[in-house]
Structures are given as structure tokens and as C-alpha cells.
């Protein structure tokens, strides 16, 4: 028993991983064709925006802050691409992709500057940004605009036998993996754990924080592409759906809101768990309102478990 606990404490994402595994098995029992090659690309395409918004929430939380504007940023990117770039003739991938990613990273960097340089409370800064992004999305495309055929369709389907969603998730994952090999992630975790210690030891915490939010923005941009791939239209109304979902995925995956503990793998399993839970209940014919109830309950139980049984040590200060 103790060994199991130690494993949970060592790997913050272990809980979400086991939860996801369990839900996967249940899903397969309820609908045995769940993982069939025919359904897989579609399933993954629905999953990808969840996972990527979860990724996007993670770096800022690790840096000891929070970014609640990543969901709206993903929908803003979706509206920008469908309602502005394509009509303006900038819809080709070699034009659109760099523009999208630059805009998303830029907005992330702006959040980072508001937090690290202007020194706004991260919730305040990103709430302001959330209002801005929701407003901009609605201004660009109040009502859904259908997208013509475009390159993002690949990410909802597949290239050969490779499901397209693996590419969007994979690009983000590889970016993080590459960064782990540099000093950046160590610096990020130290800054999140104790900014005073990191600053006093000579870490450039301003740069680290700005980069964390920029990275979150970049991931949100990829999430916007995955979202466009899925819906093939502009969906400004999805902003509120995704606003807090990423946060939930990251935290369910064992990333501590106090900063300094967790990672992208946790967000992956957290998002997969939430998605599988919804799939399972939908497939079992449960009413949508009860699905939402279950989602909320799993979130609370997961967080409380993560903070008690599975935490390496108790931090007394809950604020």
C-alpha cells in the first residue's frame, strides 16, 4: 500500500493515468468498437482541443501563476483563421500557420508581461485578457462562419495511418520534451515553487515567467488549429466551454496550483480522463446534465485526493 502511495507521490500524474486507464476499459466494455481504426482518428480529433488547452494551461501554473484566457485564446485563433485569414487569402498553411502561432504566442507573451513586468495578479491579468479575447472573437465572427476546404482538415483525419490529432498533440509534446532537456523547465519549476528563492539565486524570473505564458499561448494556438480541424467553422461561442476546461485538465493531472509541481503528461491524462468520462456517460445514455454533474464531482474528488493522500507533503496554506 505504501509503495503505491509513494508512486503516486513521486509521479503527480499517476492518479490521472490510472483514472484514464480505468475509464478506457469501461468505455471499451460499453462500446467495444471505441478504439477501432475507423473511429480512432475522429475520437482523437475530438480529444485534441481538450488536451491542447490542458497543455496551454500548464506552463503558467508551473510558474506559480495561472492563465484562464487560454480557452478563449484557442477560440479566438479559430475565429481569426476562419473569419479573417481565409477570406483575406492568407489561408494557405505556410502563411496561416506561422501567423496563427505568432499571434497566439504574442498574446501569451502579453499575458506574461502583464504578470511579470506590470505585476498584475495572474487571475486579474488573464481575466482582463479573457474579456478582450471573447470580445474580439465575437467582433470577428458573431455567428458561426463555415470554413471552406483547408489544410486543417488533415488534423481531424489522418495522414496515411497516422491520425492527424497525434500531430497537433505531438508537436506541442515534443516542444515541451525539447525544453525539458534545457535548463528552462528547471528554472520554471524553481520560479513557481519559490520566486524569491529563484530570484535571489540568480534566475531571471521575469524572462522565465514571460516565456511560460508565451509557451501557454503557443499551445493555445495549436489548440485553435485542432479546434478548427474539428469544427471547420468559426465558433466564438465555444470560448466559455474551453475557458476553465484546460485548468481542470491540468489540475486533475496533478499539477499543483501552488506552482512548481507537475507537467504536461498530467494535463494529457487529465484531459483524456475528462473526455473519456463524457464519452462513457454519453454512450451509456446518461442525461447531459448528469454528465456535467459527474465531471464536477470527479474534479473535486480528484483534487482532494491529489492534495491529501497523494501529496508529498502537506502545505498548510490553502490560499
Amino acid at each position, binding site marked *: 500500500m505504501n509503495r503505491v502511495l509513494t508512486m503516486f507521490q513521486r509521479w503527480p500524474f499517476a492518479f490521472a493515468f490510472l483514472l484514464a486507464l480505468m475509464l478506457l476499459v469501461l468505455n471499451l466494455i460499453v462500446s467495444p468498437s471505441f478504439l477501432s481504426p475507423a473511429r480512432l482518428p475522429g475520437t482523437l480529433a475530438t480529444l485534441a482541443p481538450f488536451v491542447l488547452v490542458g497543455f496551454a494551461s500548464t506552463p503558467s501554473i508551473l510558474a506559480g501563476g495561472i492563465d484562464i484566457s487560454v480557452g478563449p485564446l484557442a477560440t479566438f485563433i479559430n475565429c481569426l483563421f476562419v473569419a479573417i485569414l481565409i477570406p483575406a487569402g492568407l489561408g494557405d498553411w505556410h502563411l496561416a500557420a506561422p501567423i496563427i502561432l505568432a499571434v497566439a504566442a504574442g498574446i501569451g507573451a502579453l499575458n506574461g508581461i502583464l504578470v511579470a513586468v506590470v505585476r498584475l495578479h495572474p487571475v486579474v491579468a488573464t481575466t482582463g485578457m479573457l474579456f478582450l479575447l471573447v470580445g474580439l472573437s465575437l467582433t470577428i465572427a458573431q455567428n458561426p462562419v463555415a470554413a471552406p476546404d483547408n489544410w486543417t482538415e488533415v488534423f481531424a483525419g489522418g495522414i496515411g495511418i497516422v491520425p492527424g490529432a497525434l500531430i497537433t498533440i505531438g508537436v506541442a509534446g515534443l516542444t515541451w520534451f525539447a*525544453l525539458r532537456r534545457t535548463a*528552462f523547465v528547471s528554472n520554471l519549476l*524553481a520560479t513557481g*515553487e519559490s520566486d524569491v528563492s*529563484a530570484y535571489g539565486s540568480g534566475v*531571471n524570473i521575469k524572462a522565465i515567467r514571460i516565456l511560460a505564458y508565451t509557451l501557454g499561448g503557443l499551445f493555445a494556438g495549436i489548440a485553435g488549429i485542432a479546434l478548427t480541424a474539428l469544427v471547420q467553422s468559426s465558433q466564438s461561442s465555444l470560448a466559455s466551454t474551453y475557458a476553465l476546461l484546460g485548468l481542470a485538465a491540468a489540475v486533475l493531472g496533478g499539477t499543483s496550483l501552488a506552482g512548481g509541481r507537475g507537467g504536461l503528461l498530467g494535463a494529457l491524462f487529465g484531459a483524456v480522463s475528462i473526455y473519456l468520462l463524457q464519452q462513457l456517460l454519453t454512450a451509456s445514455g446518461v442525461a447531459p446534465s448528469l454528465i456535467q454533474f459527474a465531471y464536477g464531482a470527479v474534479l473535486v474528488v480528484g483534487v482532494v485526493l491529489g492534495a491529501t493522500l497523494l501529496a508529498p507533503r502537506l502545505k498548510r496554506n490553502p490560499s
Partner: protein
Amino acid sequence: MNNQPSGLVLAGVSKRFGATRALIDGDLHLRPGEIHTLLGENGSGKSTLVKIMGGVHRPDSGTVTLDGVPVTSRSPRAAMDLGIATVFQEVLTAGSQSVLENVWLGSHGTFRRRLGRAAQRSIAQDVLTRIAGAIPLDLPAGQLSLSERQALCIARALVRKPKVLILDESTASLDVSSRDRLFVEMRRLAAEGTAILFISHRMDEVSEISDRVTVLRSGRSVSTMERSDLSINRLIADMTGSSGHAETRRQPHDAGDTILQGAAVRLAPASTPIDFELRAGEIVGLAGLEGHGQDQFIKRLAGVAGGPGSVVRLLPEGAAELTERNGDALGVAYLPRERRGESLFESMSIRENFALPTLGKDRRGGLLDTRSMARRFDAFARSLSLRFGAAHDAISTLSGGNQQKVLLARWLATDPKVLLLNDPTRGVDIGTKREIYAILHLLSAEGMSVVILSSEVDELVDLADRVLIFRDQSVFAQIPHFELSTESIVAAYFGQKSEVHT
């Protein structure tokens, strides 16, 4: 060459924070190869000077030069790039990161790692061993004792091989054996040409290690003297601005009835249980090397920590078990160790910081009567000779010593019969220390019982009726008043009972 002096030179450096002039025309010359001690009471400007050298603050005026080149660091990182490594007063570690990551924290670039993994490990292991003994490199730093974490911070500065090393009260949380090893290391580095600035409130350390001493008082540098001219009395005179140093050794006296009793208190699963009795009017000292259980013990006495065994308050009407809640009712007050983290409400006013646990006394018809609060505060402010601007100023405007007095007043206002003090003079200047000692003597004469945990041996010798020495989570020795001496206490720290009492 040129006519610039080598080493770190501060000339006419001033700094103010709001209305407070923290440093006025501060001068300091730190030569390569010397161990230079900076001495001064709290609020004398030491920390400000350190933070200017360490890149935290920029001076309002004056120059800082290193080997003749102007230093204009905007951050600790910039200072480190110039070869100035500072171990700040606070113990700065990232608790869930490994010891290894912590040692190299800040040495890397934003992305680029310095050195390979293997080289990092061997250097870190080597430097840590030289100060603190073997510490497992992969352990999360949060699991280390305070002393080990302090050693880790020192190691972090040493692995950078700095030209200038600044140690701001780094020995305050270091246990004695680590401190001795640090001194050896400091002498070795100085011999190799490193300029070392050393700050400590402990006179024995200052006279042991310093090549030169500069004294600061009220933000000004008062004097600099060579090792050959050092005398403790003169240093104290320069620091306090007065002359003469009177020993205030406590007179033995008879204690009253037992008022607090600990029975079979166990601090760790396998440790020897402790039985403890506190009598009215007694001052009992608790001491030991960092992390040997004295801190846990005083928390048990205060009821803020739980565990096996019982702590009861003996009242005329019977015995009552102490819990986290009933300290007020039982007349037990506890002053925690970390001022900022555990005691202060920094943005709240001085007066409210004082009144919070006793707000009930200011209630008139359900509402707070601020005039009653002001009256109560003024009475304490007078009797503790508290120095402050206005009582509604934020408590963060006070110096550390004065903050501590406000906190002492906070607990005295609860009319305690038992006062538990967890290292109350840590980082407090000598002047305020003496005032606190005088208050404690007075209170015990009035029948209050005091338990004081202290990391300063001299303090215990001067103050206590008896001292309990902790070793390995239990009481190793109890030294009665007539045997109290620096030697007997330190010997017990290291597991040696002096010959006299067997």
C-alpha cells in the same frame, strides 16, 4: 596598472525606502583575500548594504565599484555575473526540487545548462560535504533540516567560485559543527584571494573569524577596525552609540508551584519520552543543535503541534489538556519563530497586529471600540519603549526589533501565566535584545513562567534558571543554574555531559 583600489568599494552609498533613510553615505572597502565583518544593530542598514551589493536594490546615490569598474547591477543575476555571490539572510530553497537542482539554481542560463550532469553532481557533492557533511543529492530540498538548507544556500554561492562572497547571517541557522566547517572553508577561500563579507549577530563568531570589522549605526558607517584593534566592548559601544557592557546574569531564586506539566512527550517515534515540569516564575531555556527536537518540543508545550504524550496546564481547579484552541483560556501564550511567515500581518497596522488575539477586550455592544484598542496599545507601547511613527502605520514600516516588541506585547496582552518564546531574539539587535531580557526578568519576578528556545548560548547563560539540551529528539541533559556556562551548554550540544553533574 591603475590607481583604483582592488576589491569591492562602496563610497557614499545612500538608499531610502519611503520616509525611512535606510543607508546614509555608507562606505565599505572589501579587499581581496580578507574576511570582513559587517556589524550593526537591526535597522542599522546592514541588510540594505548587502542587498545593494547583491544586486537586489540600486543605491539612490553613491558609487559601487569592483576592481575599479562601476557596478550597476539591476538584479542578483547581474551581480553574480560580475562575480559577486550573496547568501541572503532568508534561507532560499525550492522545496520540491532536488538538492542538486537547488545547488545549481541560477547558475544556468534561461535555456543553456552549465556543465554536464556528472560534473554538476561531483562538484555539488564535494562542496556540500565540506560544509554540511553528506547530503543525498536527489532528496527534495524541503526534507532537509534548516541548517542543511542553509548549507545548501552557501554551497550554491560557492560553486560559482565568486570573487566576492557575501554571507548575510548565514550562521544564524547553521548548527555549530557546520559553522566550524564553514569557517575553515572561509579561511581557505580568503587565502586564495576571495573577498568575504561576513555578517553575524554573534560576538564570539565575529571575534573568531574577522580580519577587519566595519560597524554600521543608524544607516551610517561608524568605524572600521583591524583585527589587532578588536575589542568586544568597543564594538558594542560603536554599535549602540554608548559605552560599557554590563553582564546581566540572572540571580538564582526560588520557583513556585508547577503550572505546566508535560508527561511522556515523545518527539519522534523511537525517541525517549520527556517529562517536564514548569514552575511559576521560572525561566527555562531550551537549546540544541538545529533540528534536534527543541523546536518541536516548544510547539508541543504551546499546543500547536500534536503527538504522543500529554501537556497539561495545572490550575487550582484541576488539570486541563492544552490544545491549539484553548491557550487563551489556560493563560498560555506562544510567540512563533518566523516573524514574517508565522506572526506578522504585514499590510495591517501596528495597532491591529498588536490587538488581534485580544479583540474581545475592545468590544462594546458587539462592535469594536477603536479608542479602547488605542488605549491598550499605548500602555504597552510605553512600557516596552516601542519606537514607531503612528500606530495606524503598517507594521512593515518598523524595524525587526520593534516588530518583535509589538508581537511580544500582542501576547502579553492576553495576560499569560506561561510565555513560550521560540527564538525571540533571532535577528534582533543587541539594544532590543537587552530590553527584551529586562522585560523577561521583570515578568518572571511577577510570577510569570517563561520557556525560551534560543540558538544563542550567551543568552541562555544570562537569562535562564535551567536549560534543557536536546539531542536526537529527546532531552540529553538538564543544566541547572549553578552549572550554566557557555562551555557546559556547548559540550552538551555535542553529547558530552560535563564532569560535575552525573
